[in-house]
C-alpha cells in the first residue's frame, strides 16, 4: 500500500506542529508516506464561495497528481481540505458533465482524475485500519487520569465523510482511550468553531469559540484534542483574548490528537512540535 500525503497550506505554517507530530506518529507505527509533488492549496470555503468551477479544478489537480504519482490512498489531515477533496470526488463521480469538463482542463497539464486514489483522514487510517488494539500496544506511557475532550469540529465528519458517526463521532475518543486516557462526554464535539470568522467577524468568532472552551472545561476536561488546523488555531491562539474579553478564564491546553498520541507513545516532545504551542502545554508526571 502506497500512502501519499497532502499537507495543505496550514500544516506548513500555523499548523506546523500537526504535521510534525503526525509524521512522527506514523513513522513510529511503521507507516511511510510520500508528500504529493507540487501540490496546490485546496481553496477551502473561499473558492466555493466565488467560483465553483475553479474550486473543483484546483482540488482535482491535487487528486490528478496523486493518481499520476501512483498512490493507492492520499492522506489528508486538515478537515477543510479533507471535506473539499471528498466533495470534488463526489461531484466528479456523480455528474459526468463536471467530470469531463474538469478532466479536459487537467489534460492540459498531463493530468486526470478517475477516482482511483482513495481519500483518507489519518483518524480513519489509525482507528479503522490499524485498530485501537494495535495502537494500545505502542503505548509506553499510558495517560492515566487524563480527561480528554475530543473536538471534531464540523467539516471533518459531515456531510460526506463515512469513516465516523456524523451524529456522535468517536474515533478521537477511541484513540484517547487506547492511549490510556479517559474521554469526557460532551455535547459540542462537532459544533462549528466559526472557521475564519475569528479574523473577520471577531465578536461572533470569539463567542463561538468561548462556548466550546467553556463547555469542555466545565465537563472537567484537562485537555482538548483536535484534528483540524483551523479549529486548533482558534481554540488555542484566541483563548487568552476570549478569557480577557468575556471575563471568564477558559484557558485549557488544546493539542492535536497526534501530539497526545506521541506523548503516550514515548516520542520526545521536540518531535511533537510541543514547543510551538501558545496555550499552556500538557505537563505529564
Amino acid at each position, binding site marked *: 500500500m502506497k500512502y501519499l500525503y497532502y499537507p495543505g497550506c496550514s500544516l506548513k505554517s*500555523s499548523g506546523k506542529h500537526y504535521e510534525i507530530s503526525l509524521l512522527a506518529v506514523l513513522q513510529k507505527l511503521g507507516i511511510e508516506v510520500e508528500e504529493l509533488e507540487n501540490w496546490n492549496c485546496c481553496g477551502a470555503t473561499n473558492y466555493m464561495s466565488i467560483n465553483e468551477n475553479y474550486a473543483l479544478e484546483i482540488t482535482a489537480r491535487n487528486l490528478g497528481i496523486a493518481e499520476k504519482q501512483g498512490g493507492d490512498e492520499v492522506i489528508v489531515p486538515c478537515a477543510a481540505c479533507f471535506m473539499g477533496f471528498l466533495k470534488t470526488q463526489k461531484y466528479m463521480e456523480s455528474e459526468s458533465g463536471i467530470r469531463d469538463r474538469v478532466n479536459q482542463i487537467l489534460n492540459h497539464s498531463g493530468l486526470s482524475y478517475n477516482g482511483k486514489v482513495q481519500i483518507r483522514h489519518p483518524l480513519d487510517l489509525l482507528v479503522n485500519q490499524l485498530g485501537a488494539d494495535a495502537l494500545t500496544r505502542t503505548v509506553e506511557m499510558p495517560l492515566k487520569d487524563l480527561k480528554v475532550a475530543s473536538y471534531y469540529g464540523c467539516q471533518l465528519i459531515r456531510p460526506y465523510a463515512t469513516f465516523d458517526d456524523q451524529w456522535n463521532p468517536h474515533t478521537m475518543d477511541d484513540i484517547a482511550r487506547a492511549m490510556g486516557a479517559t474521554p469526557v462526554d460532551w455535547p459540542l464535539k462537532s459544533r462549528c468553531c466559526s472557521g475564519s470568522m475569528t479574523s473577520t467577524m471577531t465578536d461572533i468568532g470569539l463567542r463561538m469559540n468561548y462556548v466550546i472552551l467553556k463547555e469542555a472545561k466545565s465537563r472537567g476536561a484537562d485537555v482538548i484534542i483536535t484534528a483540524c488546523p483551523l479549529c486548533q488555531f482558534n481554540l488555542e491562539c484566541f483563548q487568552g483574548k476570549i478569557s480577557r474579553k468575556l471575563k471568564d478564564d477558559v484557558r485549557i491546553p488544546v493539542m492535536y490528537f497526534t501530539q497526545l498520541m506521541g506523548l503516550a507513545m514515548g516520542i520526545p516532545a521536540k518531535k511533537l512540535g510541543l514547543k510551538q504551542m501558545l496555550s499552556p502545554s500538557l505537563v505529564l508526571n
Partner: protein
Amino acid sequence: MNASSSEILTQGLTVKLEADLDKNFGETIAREAHGEKLFGCIQCGNCSAACPLSVWMDYTPRKVIAMVRAGFKQEVLSNRTVWLCASCYQCTVECPKGIKITDVMYALKREAIENKIYPKNFPVPILARTFYSEVKRTGRINEIFLLTNYYLRYNIFKMLGYASLGVRLFMKRRLSLFEKGMTNRKEFRSMLNQ
C-alpha cells in the same frame, strides 16, 4: 439598496408586490446548487434551529430558502446573512427534506459576487476574494501575505489588534515570510484562466 415604491417595511418583514419579485430566482439558485429541491421545503425550521450562526443572521436559513424561492433576489444577495454561513453543514444533515442548505448558501454567495451586489464593506467576502487572488498568485496560502492583503483591503487599523499574536506565532516559527511555494505557478495560473 434602493427601496422601490411598492416596498413597505413592516416589523422587519419585507413586503413586495408580486410584479416586483424576480420570479426566476428560485429556479436559478436551485440549478446553481446542483438541483437542490428548494421548492420541496416545508418551512419546518430545523435548519435554523441547528445553525450555530442563525442568532446573528438577519434572515434565518429557513427564511433564506423561503425568500429565494419567492424571488427576493435583491434582498437576499445584498444582505450579510449568507456571508455569515460558515459552511458547517449542520443544517444540511438536519433537513428532513434532504435539502443541502449549505450548497444553497454557496450558490447565493457566488450569485452575489457575480452580480456584484454583495455587501461591499463586509469583511467576509473581502477575505474570500483576497484568499482567492492569493492562491491564484502563488498556488498556496502564506498566512502573513493573506492577512496583510486582507487588512489592506478591509481596514488596516484592525490589523494592529493582531500584531502581538502575530509576533508570538512568528517567534514560534508558525508564521514565515519564506514558505516554499509551488514551482510551476504559470501552469497553475493558466488552468484558472481557461
